[in-house]
Every structure is written in structure tokens, then in C-alpha cells.
């Protein structure tokens, strides 16, 4: 009878607004100091980068022979590079490209990977077999070699940031698809999925309303990790000279200057700013991901 007593007490006391699982997670996340500091840093970097044209008025492409390799001063905060371009300005504009490539690739990879993984996991059988073999096929492409070859093929014709985003995304979604599929496979075993089918929900609704919300936490965490990884990929490719075209500033392109021993040894102001920004950006993205993971884990009390 305990339950009946309980029932009446619930109706009498005006219950406070109940928190959705998302609200609980949000509160936990807001209390995570490291994640909040990281979020603040990332926001600052993003805002500065995207507002770059309003912050500095220096022309980023103009080569100035009169002010080559200047040390940091009040006029050039981080000095100038060997072509006389302002390092601070290039850093801001570089952030635009690096972050843009990272976000675009992450969105495309997560969307496509989730779609493929959810379909394969939900329908199983022949659909699963075909989609996952296709995923294996994509995963077998070596990303670096492929990007380098494509760059060589399209050199001067297509090139540029959009092609880089497309190539990385097309080859990068395999891991996400596998992860989402495995999550969907285990979530599908819950009786509420059977219940949803028996109350007449169509497959699209079962996937969108029942399966995806329950695996979304994994996908969000994976998205942050992918975001960090994509910035690294962009920088790595640009450093090697196969990423963003050399005239477009990006953090990777700026680091590429340090391939010259003279710059590496004697002009640290040219490569230390992009290197540090890159390191701290990736660190903070990973801390944010870690924070989201903790917040969404019902067993962690932090």
C-alpha cells in the first residue's frame, strides 16, 4: 500500500519542476571548472578569429619588404614574418580557417557517420552488411596519401579550403559510423524500442525520437573529439604543404615557416604564437569533451 500513500502525497505537495536528463547534465557541466575555463578560452579564440577584420586592419596578403622579420613591438604585437606580414593579424585570420575547417569537417563527418551508423544498426541484416562493408572500404583509404594525391591532381584547378573540407569529410566518417552503429545495436535491445514499434511508430520515428536521443551523448562527445582531431589534421596537412593553399593563412601554414632552421632557431615569435594557440585550442576542446562526457554520465557525481 506504500505506493498509494505516496501517490496522494505527490498530488498534495506541488512538485517542483522536474529536470530533464539534459537539464541535469547541463547543471553538472556548468559546475565543471576546467571545462568552463576551456569553453571560455575557445569562445575567446573563436570570437577574435571571426571578428578579425574588425580587430586588425592590416592587409594579410601584402608583402612588405621594408618590415621583414621584425621582433615584437607595439606596432607589430607578435612581430612580422620573413615576408614582412604581421604575425598577430595572420594568427587571427589563420584561426578563422583552422576553426572553419574543423567545424565544417566535424559537422559533415558526424552527420554522415550518424546517418550510416543508425541505419545499419537499426535495420540490421543485409542493410547492415552492405553499409558496414562500404564503411570498411572507406576506412581503408589512407587519408594523408589520398589528400596529397588529390591535391596534386587538382593543383591549381580546384584547390582551396572547400576541397580540403570535402576530402577530409568523405574519408573521415567511418569511425563515427562504427561507433554509432554499435551504440544503436545495444540501445535497440531495450524494451522501449519494441514498445515503440508495437504502438505503431514508423522506423524513422523510432530512430529519431527513441534511438538517437539516447545515443546522442556519445555522439556529442565524439563530435568534440573529432573537432580537435580535424584541427590537427588541417594543421598537419598545411604544415606539410598539402592542406590549405600557402597564400591563405592558417595555423598549420604559419607553423610551416618553422621548417626553415633560421626561423626555428632565431625567430621564435613567428612560430610560437600559432603553436601555442593550436595546443591550447585542442587542449580546451578535449577538456570540454571530457566535461560533457562526465556531465552526461549518470554515474559520475561531479
Amino acid at each position, binding site marked *: *500500500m*506504500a*505506493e*498509494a500513500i*505516496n*501517490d496522494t502525497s*505527490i*498530488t498534495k505537495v506541488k*512538485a517542483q*519542476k*522536474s*529536470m*530533464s*536528463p539534459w537539464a541535469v547534465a547541463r547543471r553538472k557541466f556548468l559546475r565543471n571548472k576546467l571545462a568552463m575555463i576551456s569553453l571560455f578560452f575557445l569562445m575567446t579564440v573563436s570570437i577574435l578569429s571571426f571578428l578579425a577584420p574588425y580587430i586588425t586592419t592590416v592587409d594579410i596578403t601584402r608583402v612588405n619588404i621594408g618590415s621583414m622579420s621584425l621582433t615584437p613591438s607595439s606596432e607589430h604585437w607578435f612581430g612580422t614574418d620573413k615576408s614582412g606580414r604581421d604575425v598577430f593579424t595572420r594568427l587571427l585570420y589563420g584561426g578563422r580557417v583552422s576553426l572553419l575547417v574543423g567545424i565544417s569537417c566535424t559537422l559533415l563527418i558526424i552527420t554522415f557517420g550518424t546517418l550510416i551508423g543508425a541505419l545499419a544498426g537499426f535495420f540490421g541484416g543485409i542493410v547492415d552488411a552492405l553499409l558496414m562493408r562500404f564503411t570498411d572500404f572507406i576506412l581503408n583509404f589512407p587519408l594523408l596519401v589520398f589528400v596529397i594525391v588529390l591535391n596534386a591532381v587538382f593543383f591549381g584547378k580546384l584547390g582551396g579550403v572547400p576541397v580540403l573540407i570535402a576530402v577530409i569529410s568523405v574519408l573521415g566518417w567511418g569511425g563515427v559510423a562504427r561507433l554509432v552503429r554499435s551504440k544503436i545495436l545495444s540501445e535497440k535491445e*531495450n*524494451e*522501449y524500442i*519494441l*514498445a*515503440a*514499434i*508495437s*504502438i*505503431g*511508430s*514508423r522506423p524513422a*520515428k523510432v530512430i529519431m*525520437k*527513441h534511438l538517437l*536521443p*539516447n545515443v546522442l551523448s556519445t555522439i556529442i562527445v565524439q563530435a568534440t573529439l573529432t573537432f580537435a582531431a580535424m584541427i590537427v589534421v588541417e594543421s598537419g596537412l598545411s604544415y606539410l604543404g598539402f592542406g590549405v593553399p600557402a597564400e591563405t593563412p592558417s595555423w598549420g601554414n604559419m607553423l610551416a615557416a618553422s621548417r626553415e632552421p633560421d626561423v626555428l632557431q632565431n625567430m621564435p615569435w613567428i612560430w610560437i604564437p600559432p603553436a601555442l594557440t593550436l595546443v591550447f585550442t585542442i587542449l580546451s576542446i578535449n577538456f570540454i569533451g571530457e566535461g560533457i562526457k562526465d556531465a552526461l554520465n549518470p554515474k559520475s557525481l561531479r
Partner: protein
Amino acid sequence: MSNVVDIQHKEQSPPLPSNQETLLEVKDLKTYYPVKGGFFRRTVGHVKAVDGVSFSLKKGETLGLVGESGCGKSTAGRTILKLLKPSGGRITFDGEDITNIRGSRLRERRKDFQMVFQDPYASLNPMQMVGDIISEPIKNYYPRKKAKDIKQEVMELLNRVGLPEDAYHKYAHEFSGGQRQRIGIARALALKPKLIIADEPVSALDVSVQSQVLNLLNELQDDFNLTYLFIAHDLSVVKHMSDHIGIMYLGHIVEIADKKSIYEEPLHPYTQALISAVPEPNPKKKKERIVLKGDVPSPENPPSGCPFHTRCPVAVDKCSTIKPELKEVKPGRKVACILVD
């Protein structure tokens, strides 16, 4: 459990007239799970979870399906609701053969048969509010219904299953097991089905809450004119719910009869063993307990002949060769045992 809490015993109604309409008829139903093995993942065998189950269920009645875990009773229930694909046999629901219907026809029929699930924790989506859970079936089938009317309907359902109205805006994790099961029952009722298959609806609940949920199910049966297929492993629970009882063993029904006969005069040796295991509230009453030896054989490789002969206390030689048919030994009583005549 009957000595713990009062249970409104199902009224001892006189045997229902036999000319009553049959709602569900299951004939020789089979559900096999393929076993894959080898290098090419070929099918190397089958787990015969349900292997030739037949029964019929009249409107307004309750059939209890009892058996130990792994005997295929839940699989049978899910196959009848077409949540699993039947491997053989025929399911006739309300005069229509639904064994092989699919797509929109199946979806249309699903309105009439619903399920109450075993695990009240896994059967509710943790990301949905209770109001959304219960209104989803209505929205699925009546997409043009006004939001206000749907909410009204959901409130009535909440009220009917004994939940407070402010449950509408809460999440499932804020409720106890018994309350969650009430939410599951409300969801099953939302489409006003004819048949409800209750798959061990109380086995995950506290004993004190079990009786409340069972009473609720009994009341709803009268109010909504429901027919139940009640699956359980607990004979005392089934006793309070059912008009007829089917005993399952290893994918087969070994005995099916009205409640009274099963409890007072079990005929099949397996039924006798089960009945002897029901605790007796009266300590002075002596009764002999039949203890079965060994384990349930694997349904992937069931014994030859009678599936029960490996553990049967009265088995004879020919039990291992002859597979007994479920045959009528008395009016309304069917037993699958060559020793019973």
C-alpha cells in the same frame, strides 16, 4: 504472496459459454532463431524457442502462459504480436490471418493488440516525458487530432491507471517500479486495444506492489473489455489472473486447461512438479514436493521424443522415441503426454 496483501480474487465466474467469439487463435506456432557459425557465418542450426504452440483465446478471457525461464513464453508472446517473425504456423486474430501481414496493414492491426512489458525500467524511454510516452500511440494513429484533445485523453488514462495528473510533465526516472508499470499500462491502453499481452508485468516488482498492479489489470479488463494473454513464471500470480492456463516447457505447451483443473488435478508430470512447488500457506497441510533433476535441455538441440523425458520422474522407454501430441483428454483439457489418457 496471497497471505501478504489482500487480493481481489477474480470472481469465480461460471465457465464461459463455448459459443463466445474467438479473438485469437494460434496454430502450431514456431519461432526459430538461426545459429550462425563457421567461416562464412552460415546458419548451422536453430534455437527452437517456440516449437509448435497452439491455443485459442476467446473474447474477454485471460489465458495464463506459465513456464520456467527460457521455455519460450515471452518469445511466443512477441511472435503473436508480430514483433518477431514467426518461422511457421498460423496466427488468426479477430478472424484475420495475421501470420504474414506486413507494412501498413500490420501497422493498422497493431492498434488492436498491445503489450505490457516485463522490465518497467527498460520499457520506458528515459528521454521522454510521461505525457509524450502515453500520447505517442495516439499521435501515431490519429495525427489530425487536436493537441488539447490528446492531452485530455492522456490525463484520463493517467487517472484511470492511478497516477497523479502532474505525472504528465515528469520523466520516467522519477517514478517507482510500480508507477512505471502503470505508465506502461496506460501506453498500452491508449489505442483501446482488444488484446493485451502482458509479458511478466509484475515479476520485476515488489510483492506489495505486485498485487496493486494485478488488481489494476483485473479492473481494466472489465472496464475496457480486454482479452489478456498473461505470461508469467509465478503460478500464484497466474492463479489470480487467468481463466485458462497453459503450461510451457522447452517451446511446447504440455498442458492447457481451465484454472481449476490445473491447480486441483494436474495431469502432466511437469505440471504436477510445478504445482507441488507452489508454497502452501497452511503449515499443517502436508504435501509432497516433486523435485525435478537436471537442467532444461538446450532448445538448440532438444531431446528426441517427448521434450520432457530427460527430467520426467515417470518416464518410460518409449518417451524418448514418441513425440506426444497435445490431445484432448477431457472436454477443455489438453495434455501432451503418452502416459495420460
